[in-house]
């Protein structure tokens, strides 16, 4: 059905179910789904006094809501709003099964509300001064549940994960990571979509709905390739995207041909209904177009100039030998033509054929249906912006080539993984509205001049330049250390709110499905500090309270 979408412009007005509202793509203006990272807008109102007490009263009556108060509260920036860390004393953080509802100022005087009316759950950790509450963290590039010899997940990770693998519980209990994104990946070309997996200490790991980001693997050019050739890395992607467009065009063309065919078919039958064939006669099939075979090679030139023109292409040493052969052939052809002309009877010019034969329409030819192609379907979803295009690129030249391609094809959402030299292409990335997933595990390849403590400085510079950043562990156990590595970017100048945003909302956006509930986690300290451990987990309406770190 989605192949019926006409041109991208129309796509703007058709409500696309699965993604957030698609702002018209203007290269300079950031697409709406990516928060305005880096440039922290001045908080207009007094911190904490965002919603008035009436809203708070309504929420108190709602059983599915959980209100949390702790030393510090973190509200991730969604749909362009900037992330904020707020002092917990003066406000409540409200959360419902779908996700964080918002921050509400704690009323100065206690609310008079009947005890039985209060159905929402209230969790007050503000007695612990350095406790910290915020959404669950998410690992943007994890290898959990990947079969040991996974090799490649190119049909997409959903069907291939060993969801019964154990050993991830301390990931959730110690470092508060409640969701991991397992990307697909494989040989060069389009791979299927990755999968977001929800981790729940009790209910185990469950895979979340229709997977989002589908992964494209650029060619692995030899490391010796120079900056010039590295731009060509994107050639195969460009060809694939154009192929997808032609696929859509061919599909639409087939529809039109099919309607024409049915019309022709109808009057073909009507004609023969009026004057049916006599026995033994058959409808002549439409004359087949002469095939191209045999026209190019061995053509005999008719005039002297054609012969000379053909001989130019012949190497000089053989020219006279070929000229003699050609002249002999020309003479033989001329004699044969003369003989045929003499033999053939003069064509009678009469038009006396019966009119119905002339009017008899030939049998219509059924237009060949283009073959169903799954990869092209996946690429069309990328062009429409329904799934995120996820590309691994490390060198500045490759990153620039990818961003140029994204602008050219108006891809609303691309994710770059690894991106060791991304800080060199920061403004191109911001223009293309890309999100960068930094994976500390991948060591810089030679030929790349990286900064001291490469991934932390890289993340800090990108955040400063306004490019949204997320962190991926690209491993299993290392996932628990992700918040420590994010803390290192804070040491390099990235504001703490940005680092937490990178660990929560940006990682979810990188997975391509923006409406995901990663639950709420209350830490004993700021999750970036190593002393933090999880005090309480809230997912949907179920609250898991943990006594210290088991």
């Amino acid at each position, binding site marked *: 059905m989605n192949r019926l979408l006409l041109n991208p412009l129309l796509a703007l007005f058709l409500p696309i179910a699965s993604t957030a509202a698609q702002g018209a793509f203007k290269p300079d203006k950031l697409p709406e789904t990516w928060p305005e990272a880096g440039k922290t807008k001045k908080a207009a109102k007094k911190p904490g006094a965002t919603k008035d007490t009436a809203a708070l009263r309504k929420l108190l009556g709602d059983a599915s809501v959980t209100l949390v108060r702790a030393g510090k509260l973190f509200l991730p920036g969604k749909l362009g709003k900037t992330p904020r860390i707020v002092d917990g004393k003066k406000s409540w953080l409200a959360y419902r099964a779908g996700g964080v509802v918002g921050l509400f100022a704690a009323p100065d005087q206690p609310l008079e509300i009947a005890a039985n009316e209060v159905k929402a759950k209230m969790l007050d950790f503000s007695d612990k001064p350095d406790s910290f509450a915020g959404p669950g963290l998410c690992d943007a590039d994890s290898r959990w549940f990947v079969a040991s010899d996974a090799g490649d997940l190119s049909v997409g990770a959903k069907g291939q994960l060993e969801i019964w693998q154990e*050993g991830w519980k301390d990931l959730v209990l*110690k*470092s508060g990571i409640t969701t991991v994104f397992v990307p697909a990946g494989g040989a060069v070309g389009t791979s299927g979509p990755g999968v977001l997996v929800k981790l729940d200490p009790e209910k185990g790991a469950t895979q979340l709905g229709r997977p989002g980001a589908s992964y494209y693997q650029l060619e692995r050019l030899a490391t010796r390739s120079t900056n010039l050739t590295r731009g060509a890395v994107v050639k195969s992607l460009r060809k694939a995207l154009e192929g997808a467009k032609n696929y859509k065009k061919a599909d639409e063309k087939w529809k039109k041909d099919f309607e024409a065919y049915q019309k022709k078919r109808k009057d073909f039958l009507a004609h023969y209904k009026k004057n049916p064939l006599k026995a033994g006669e058959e409808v002549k099939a439409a004359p087949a177009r002469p095939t191209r075979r045999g026209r190019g090679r061995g053509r005999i030139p008719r005039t002297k100039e054609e012969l000379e023109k053909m001989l130019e292409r012949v190497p000089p040493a053989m020219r006279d030998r070929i000229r003699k052969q050609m002249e002999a052939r020309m003479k033989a052809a001329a004699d044969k033509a003369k003989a045929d002309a003499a033999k053939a009877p003069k064509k009678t010019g009469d038009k006396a054929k019966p009119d119905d034969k002339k009017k008899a329409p030939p049998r219509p030819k059924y237009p060949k249906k283009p073959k169903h192609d799954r990869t092209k379907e996946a690429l069309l979803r990328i062009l429409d912006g329904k799934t995120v295009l996820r590309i691994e690129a490390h060198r500045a030249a490759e990153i620039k080539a990818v961003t140029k391609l994204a602008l050219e094809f108006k891809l609303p959402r691309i994710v770059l993984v690894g991106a060791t030299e991304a800080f060199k292409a920061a403004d191109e990335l911001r223009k293309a509205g890309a999100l960068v997933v930094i994976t*500390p*595990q991948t*060591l*810089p390849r030679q030929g790349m001049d990286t900064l*001291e*403590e*490469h*991934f*932390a400085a890289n993340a800090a510079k990108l955040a400063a330049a306004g490019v949204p950043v997320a962190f991926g562990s690209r491993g*299993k*156990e*290392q996932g*628990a*250390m992700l918040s*420590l*590595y994010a*803390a*290192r970017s*804070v*040491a390099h*100048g990235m504001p*703490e709110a940005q680092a937490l945003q990178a660990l929560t909302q940006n990682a979810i956006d990188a997975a391509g499905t923006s409406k995901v509930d990663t639950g709420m986690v209350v830490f004993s300290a700021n999750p*970036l*500090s*190593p*002393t933090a451990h999880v005090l309480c987990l809230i997912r949907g309406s179920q609250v898991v309270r943990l006594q210290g*770190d088991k």
Partner: protein
Amino acid sequence: MVSRRIAFGLVVGGALALLAQSATAQNAAPNGLLIRAGKAWVAPGQALVRASLLVKNGKIVDAVARPTNDAKETFLDQADSVRDFGKNAVLTAGFVDVHTHAGSDGELAEPVESFTPELRASRAYDAWASAWKRITARGVTSAVLAPDDRNLAGGIAAFVDPGLAAGSDADNYFKMSLTGAALNRERRPTSLMGAADYLRERATELQNLAPAKMTPAQRALAAVIGGGQSVGIACSTVREIHAALDATTTYQLRTFLIHADEAEECLARIVGAKVPVVLRPLGLQSSRKQLRLPGVLQKAGVAFAFAGENDQDSGLPGLQTSLAIAVRQGITAADALASVTTRPAQIAGQSERVGTLFTGRDADILVWSGEPWDLRSRLLAVIRNGTILHENKQ
């Protein structure tokens, strides 16, 4: 005309003065440097709030906690220069890296002969290698350059101050290795059984041999047998750990294990032998077992320290990351700090010189922008023997 020449003179003079001044700052310790900071971890677990330290010709003279922020210290008169790092700066002792091969890779192993007890790592120490600069910039103020793991008996390690030439008394512990790297080579011994037999053979040679007639190799081995010089045995699998502990009991060695990756499986034997363990640094490439090991050792009461190894640029500061990951794994902050300062100093036998900020110790001080085990805090300055070696302005 004249003014230009004078101006020219002034400029040249100024540059020269500046040069001279920074040079002096480089090596001769200013007599009486006062350092003020928000907190000082004088020793793991012992903190002075609003601390100020007095450093004189390379040694720590006194450390005191100021009652209020701007109260004056008693010994203010003795200090002729004051450096105040602000109220949320934290001072700690310099990190001690007890097992590293930095700067002289490739020269620390004798490929032909497996048993070379007399080789001294101080000969292979290149004080001016660029690796040392990077290591000091990350907080390591004293290190032990140890022979490689590729020899059954690699030789004698050297205790050095990174960047300064090694003194004559640099010789430190004796390095042995029972790992696969030392054994599966085409020379004797090729297996653990062979190694035990080779050691027994060398030890029996010494029994009825007068020290005068001993060769340097035999003298080095004799110094170790009976518990004289401490021995660092590199081992990783359970069978290698058992072989190391067997050798310790048969020859009464004063041993500490290096790496001991599978220590968790033979924990009872290690606890029984009461030997400290030097662990690999924790970081991006650590496996699940390595991440779990510090917690296991601490619960069982085994003393452990983190080694820096050759700390190639893995994208994270070497020992500080081990500190942070250890704390994340549940080790108390004091214990983690001890594993990079006081315990390596004890293992290297230098605890009366480095590892803490007590009076009389070397003035190896690190200044942090926050708690050292929190990766959000940067290293503001590295002070060794009283001189500010490295300062990042950011």
